[in-house]
């Protein structure tokens, strides 16, 4: 385990928040894309 010193909380918080936000936007992007594709395919099959 690497040593973060007295600023451990700060560094971890910064990394935590950023990674959460990044994961959030990536997840939202992929989910919306999958949904759009699914709906379109469903529609093209039936319609």
């Amino acid at each position: 385990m690497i040593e973060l010193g007295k600023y451990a909380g700060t560094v971890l918080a910064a990394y935590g928040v950023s990674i959460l936000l990044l994961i959030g936007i990536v997840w939202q992007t992929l989910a919306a894309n999958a949904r759009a594709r699914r709906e379109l395919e469903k529609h093209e099959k039936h319609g």
Partner: protein
Amino acid sequence: MSIWEYANPVKFMRVSGAVLPWLVATAAICTTGGVAWGFLTPEDYRQGSTVKIVFLHVPAAMMAINIWVMMLVASLIWLIRRHHVSALAAKAAAPVGAVMTLIALATGAIWGQPMWGTWWEWDPRLTSFLILLLFYIGYIALWSSIEDADSAADLTGVLCLVGSVFALLSRYAVMFWNQGLHQGASLSVAEGERMSAVYRYPLYLSMLGFLLLFLALVLIRTRTEIRRRRLAALQAREMRG
């Protein structure tokens, strides 16, 4: 073949579909690599371990600005040449830009606590970012509140144009208004003050990663938007027919 051919949605879907796997893979590698490398760099003698934040903060801050510029270019292409894909790309980029701005703000705020002893300071750099966030929010809100897709593209395009001018103006106004605490750009300054290589290379990698990540996200989101438009057209036609 001119570059405008890629603005044809069918062609765009084909090309972007072919490029995406590679893009996603390199983006994932560079981003995680850059961030992880950054996290493992040694402490700075002045800033302690907080220097590690730079590998998130700086790439995010740069992307936040560059994404707005890209949206401006895309809006102009839409307004002048009326290529739908470019309008949709601008729409797709905005949420990514807003998130980048948020990351820059959040990491900056968290960093500020130990460095300046405050979460938030009305420093010009910071303030301009807050204003940029406002522009992103307004832009996204306008897109989402207009029903007709082409009108929405036109109106947000005009807003992006006017907004860019005022974002720039605000930057100068804010600098006039308050002298700041924030660091100047250190990547470009004279050799002596330059960041040591220990920090420079992971930073480069992280910046590249963020850029690729953004490109991948924009491509995927543009594809989503195109599919949505297609679905809406099919549904509308069915109802009418």
